[in-house]
């Protein structure tokens, strides 16, 4: 059947697959895992002139210090994506468990945790991050912990709101009447029903954190040179724009594409999830 299909249908199928974001996410994940093996040169190796145009030796040309742009993009993916993924995981672990906890217990526990979180929320994330990072220095663990902690406040607000709407449903009442403990109620009754909105938030939050890492790096507070990351690559090569050279557009495009691709993948998951 499928072999006899009209070729134009085939092509639109391929297009749809590409537009689903999955291939791009897979490609970037491959870069993250395989960077040292697939990159044509070393991460901080000087291999050409300043902003050489694309050539067979340097497919995307070279950067402001004569390093291979493609190599830097591949290693940049590794550094930025790993950091953003770890920070997202931390933000969700903290935010979801606290949010569910507050929603399920209610009363003064909820009030106390929520007010504390709101105080944290009232300070802009960038300012808090700048303060913490300038005091503690910006090693990778500090960076991940800081971003994860700050972003967990946003996750908390969503997780608590979602859980509150689930807690009042009768199957939770049924579990409580059975005498189930808090852990069962949180993990078995609430969590499975909160997955869809949390997944949507995870896609969005990952993108935000990723962009946040990029802007921290742009300000010089993120990942430190000579390690590559997409945000600082934009900053380092920004000057090239003045000469009509496309160098900063490569990392900028990478940031945009990954953000879109991740959200497309989440959309697909949510669409599949909402089907009966």
């Amino acid at each position, binding site marked *: 059947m499928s072999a006899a299909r009209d070729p134009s249908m085939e092509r639109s199928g391929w297009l749809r697959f590409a537009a689903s974001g999955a291939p791009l996410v897979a490609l970037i994940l491959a870069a993250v895992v395989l960077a040292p093996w697939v990159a044509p040169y070393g991460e901080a190796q000087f291999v050409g002139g300043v902003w050489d145009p694309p050539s067979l030796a340097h497919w995307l040309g070279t950067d402001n210090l004569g390093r291979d742009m493609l190599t830097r993009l591949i290693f940049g993916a590794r550094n930025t994506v790993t950091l953003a993924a770890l920070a997202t995981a931390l933000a969700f672990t903290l935010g979801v468990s606290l949010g569910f906890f507050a929603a399920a217990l209610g009363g003064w526990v909820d009030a106390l945790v929520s007010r504390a979180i709101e105080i944290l929320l009232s300070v802009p994330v960038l300012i808090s991050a700048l303060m913490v990072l300038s005091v503690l220095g910006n090693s990778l663990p500090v960076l991940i912990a800081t971003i994860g902690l700050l972003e967990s406040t946003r996750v908390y607000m969503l997780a608590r709101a979602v859980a509150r709407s689930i807690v009042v449903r009768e199957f939770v009442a049924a579990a*409580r009447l059975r005498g189930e403990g808090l852990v069962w109620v949180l993990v078995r009754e609430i969590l499975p029903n909160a997955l869809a909105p949390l997944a949507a938030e995870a896609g969005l939050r990952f993108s935000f954190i990723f962009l946040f890492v990029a802007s921290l790096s742009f300000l010089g507070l993120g990942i430190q040179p000579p390690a590559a990351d997409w945000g600082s690559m934009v900053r380092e090569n920004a000057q090239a724009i003045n000469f009509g050279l496309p160098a900063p557009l490569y990392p900028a495009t990478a940031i945009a594409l990954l953000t879109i691709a991740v959200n497309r993948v989440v959309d697909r998951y949510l669409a599949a999830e909402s089907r009966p």
Partner: protein
Amino acid sequence: MTAGPLLRIEGLSVHSATGVALVDGISLELARGEVLGLIGESGAGKSTIGLAALGFARGDCRITAGRILLDGLDLRLQSAEGLRRLRGRRVAYVAQSAAAAFNPALRLIDQICEGPVRHGLMSRHEAEARAIDNFRALGLPDPTRFGRRYAHQVSGGQLQRAMAIMAMSCGPDLLVLDEPTTALDVTTQIDVLAHLKTLIAGAGTAALYISHDLAVVAQIADRLLVLRHGKLVETGPTEEILARPQTAYARALVAERTGVALAQPAQKAAWSVRRQAPRPAMPVPANEAVAAGEAVPASILDVQGLAVRYGRQDALSDASFALAPGETLAVIGESGSGKTSLAYAVSGLVPAHAGRVSLGGIPLAPGYARRSREQLRRLQLVFQLPDVALNPRQRIASLVGRPAQFYRGMRGEALAQRVAELLGLVGLDPALAARWPGELSGGQKQRVCIARALAAEPDVLVCDEVTAALDPLIAEEILQLQRRLQEQLGLAYLFITHDLATVRRIAHRVLVLWRGRVVAQGPTAQVLGESEHSYVKQLCASEPQMRRGWLEETLAGRVDPTAAEPVQYPHAN
């Protein structure tokens, strides 16, 4: 105006997106001023036909065949603009849930006047004056200012009347009424039914009246169309179908209401034997019960002076009763009478404000959190809506198996066997264990809820309106199941309901609640037959009966116990 029927539907078929036939080759005719009742259980295609009369198909559904002629005009050939001009003006619709159909952010009068003004039939001023006349005619309080309220500021019965007024605002030729009284309790239903009848008869409007309750339709419809699975089962004049149903399905529907087929002599005998035991009609203080000695069967559940308060609002005060093993006590009353508060306070979901609940002679803590696991196990609650009582993200096996695992420590193969056994006990295929709740029908889900409660091996089952959300025939199956389980397992039921037919069929004793107070209590036949309390009398009188003319008789002989407003039914001619 042409001669011939107002609405003529020929060979109508409607299919869902997945290709399932919702309506399959239905034809019908409706004359001017005639009321046709469409009756059947859910999934019979009643609403789909009703909407097709507006030239509309819901969601992903499509009208795949047939003609829908309104006064000779084929609705399937009309443009969107043409349909817009027809809808509201010539065909109007009254939805089941008025609360969901009104815009909560707009005042009622604005929504009622929108139709005639937008269709250019009246000025806003005229439309308002007419709406106020109708408010008065339908007995709505403070007619001149009623329209300024928002939907949430009026009661369900009032809102349903307001919706009927809205539907009639353009003076349509055809009114489609989709279960307009189903969501209301019996005493409110009778009011709304009477008003709808007045409104339709006064304006000479033809109507399609959709309902699953034959007794309700019988009061208002000239002819009936019995539907099942999208196909026509039987059609004919109302009296004809009530008196001489031709098909087995129609006979089942008629019998469901009258209860003829189900009064099995064996059970009756068992009940009467139990009733011979000198049970006190009202619970007596403990010392008297002891004095009475063995004559009083030991009660499993004992409730004394139970009161529930939400903030400063008393939802229930001073409720006392006892429940013996193997006995069913029905708690009846209209919505807001404190029935559910009683169920929740007994099960501990809502801590009682005052009073005492004892299970097997041991007093229970007011809130469930302070009751022991064993106490929780012995008293199980079955919720009204199976859709929300089952976690949609747990398979049937874990839903039903969890109490056995939790209370009895069952695991692995033993647990799987127990789940299969429980599913068999409630009449479900054990293969359903692998399914998700979303893949089951409403009746199946309620059976799962009962199986889950049974998994705890309880002594007392508190059932909160367990059949209210189900179709009558499915509800009947659930009631039969519960009776069978009671005989097999000796369960005691505290059965919350607003449906008297249910009470008659399942309850040994009845407790009537009215505005949070117990107004009558005792053996079923005695309370429903002889009670002196005016509310109980009215409640019994409000239960729709399967004969034409019942509505008028009942209204004529009715005394309003609330006496808040004199009930008047002027004809709006």
